[in-house]
């Protein structure tokens, strides 16, 4: 079944915006997604009708606010097929979720002489927290390399994970769009005794996420790339692991009891949620999940395969040898994120020229500088799509790129 993009576009007020009399062509959803009306309504409703602090009130309003927060947790839990709602922890964003894992599980489990394994595809959020901890604990960070097509090179995988304690990787690359073989990596790593974390920030918004089927131990993602608001992210972890982990931030909510002598921690998931949580954002995230679920994650994925195919073919047929496209060429092996460089025009200049026609794409290192070094480029242009994009957006991009070529390549 195909999705009706023209109808979907109507649900996104920002996509109706015109600047200088021209419509907006938004192709930067890997950076942040636009929001449907239902998400904004849920957040506004919360503040208009339900605002009270949660888990503390003894009156109806506070109970309703608590039900909104915990209802959103239930939605997340079923959206990713968690075993229980206790396994779903709200954080500020995916970066904070990864810092939570490194600061609690990492601090408790990684010591001098240990090793962890990352990949060359990683976003800084799945690199720097580990480097910070490694500087303190003196463990080794090993890297799975990528091959020329942007896939992980697994030829020495067994050797890399040998004796390591953690495997942490992006389920989908935010630069190349590559889907990593989550189940294959996870099964082999767990057989060797490693704990496995998947950064699903790019994955969960675009394809069905089933943490039990994936088999991983931790999954992290952010709300704002998934039609939800900025300011909320998710850590999912297996209950037995979360149980053993020390708390992250200290304060209210995360305690059962506090005395002058010390404290005891609250039950899961609140043990990891110190302070007043982001209730309106949770309401928004819940509405985003409802919106995506109504359309269907498989339908969204199929739409993006089709549009990615169209984009790749258009770029190659229009610009041939003058364009370099990074990452897998087969759209069934990648998400709707396409990085490229253009002979004779720098990514920053490409974005600038496209901006004249309200075409929004990202230029830069995409918070993946180690990957840029591997690709031997300083920056790339990146087009990324979502359920509200269609071929007319890609056609606008192509005609914008012709203007770039006319200006820079005489």
């Amino acid at each position, binding site marked *: 079944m195909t999705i009706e993009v023209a109808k979907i576009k109507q649900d996104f007020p920002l996509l109706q915006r015109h600047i200088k009399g021209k419509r907006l062509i938004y192709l930067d959803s890997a950076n942040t997604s636009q929001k449907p009306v239902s998400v904004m309504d849920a957040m506004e409703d919360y503040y208009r009708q339900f605002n009270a602090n949660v888990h503390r009130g003894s009156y109806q309003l506070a109970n309703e606010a608590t039900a909104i927060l915990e209802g959103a947790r239930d939605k997340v839990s079923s959206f990713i097929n968690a075993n229980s709602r206790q396994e779903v922890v709200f954080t500020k964003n995916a970066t904070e979720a990864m810092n939570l894992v490194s600061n609690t599980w990492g601090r408790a489990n990684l010591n001098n002489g240990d090793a962890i394994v990352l990949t060359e595809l990683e976003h800084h959020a799945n690199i720097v927290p580990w480097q910070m901890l490694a500087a303190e604990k003196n463990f080794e960070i090993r890297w799975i390399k990528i091959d020329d097509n942007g896939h992980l090179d697994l030829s020495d995988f067994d050797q890399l994970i040998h004796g390591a304690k953690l495997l942490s990787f992006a389920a989908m690359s935010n630069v190349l769009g590559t889907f990593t073989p989550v189940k294959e990596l996870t099964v082999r790593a767990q057989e060797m005794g490693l704990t496995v974390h998947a950064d699903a920030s790019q994955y969960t918004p675009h394809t069905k996420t089933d943490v039990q089927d994936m088999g991983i131990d931790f999954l992290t993602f952010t709300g704002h790339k998934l039609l939800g608001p900025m300011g909320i992210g998710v850590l999912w972890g297996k209950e037995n692991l979360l149980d053993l982990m020390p708390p992250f931030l200290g304060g209210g909510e995360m305690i059962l009891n506090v005395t002058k002598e010390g404290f005891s921690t609250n039950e899961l998931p609140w043990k990891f949620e110190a302070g007043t949580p982001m209730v309106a954002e949770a309401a928004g995230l819940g509405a985003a999940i409802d919106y995506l679920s109504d359309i269907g994650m498989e339908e969204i994925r199929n739409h993006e395969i089709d549009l990615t195919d169209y984009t790749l073919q258009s770029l190659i047929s229009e610009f041939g040898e003058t364009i370099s496209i990074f990452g897998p060429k087969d759209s069934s092996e990648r998400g709707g994120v396409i990085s490229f460089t253009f002979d*004779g025009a720098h*990514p*920053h200049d490409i974005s600038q020229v496209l901006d*004249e026609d309200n075409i929004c794409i990202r230029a830069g290192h995409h918070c993946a500088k180690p990957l840029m070094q591997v690709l031997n480029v*300083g*920056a790339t242009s990146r087009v990324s799509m979502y359920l509200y994009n269609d071929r007319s957006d890609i056609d606008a991009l192509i005609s914008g790129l012709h*203007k770039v070529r006319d200006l820079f390549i005489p």
Partner: protein
Amino acid sequence: MSSLDDLYKEIILDHYRSPRNQGELDPPAHRCEGFNPLCGDEVIVFVSLIDQKIEDIRIGGQGCSISQASASMMTEIIKGKSISEAEKIIHAFKEMMDIYESELSGEETAESSSNVDLGDLEALQGVVKYPVRIKCATLAWNTLTQSIDEIQGVK
């Protein structure tokens, strides 16, 4: 396309396509790196100083048309100048880049402290309308400033 023409003047595109004084200088020439963390652009400025005079200057690294053209034009105007002349030029260039900010904050336009002729560099004036690109235009200049500071032992 009129505002784009304002930004991408022919002289800028010419310096971008055929950058002047590109390459490296061997030690004892001074080497200094500058980064634009926003977009990952990188410039390396090599300065060969003899008797307080910039005998030679070269540019390495990578970047967009604005940063590359600005760096290229910078080498042309700076080469052969004394440190104090170079500092005046740097000051005048940054003043040109800052015009946007003074206008925004409603301050009086800063009086020109120097009568430096920036020549081709005037073409970069269009950049001030694009605040994000000011960082591109000033990357090589800030790196040169750092380089001079390091040579003089300030930092």
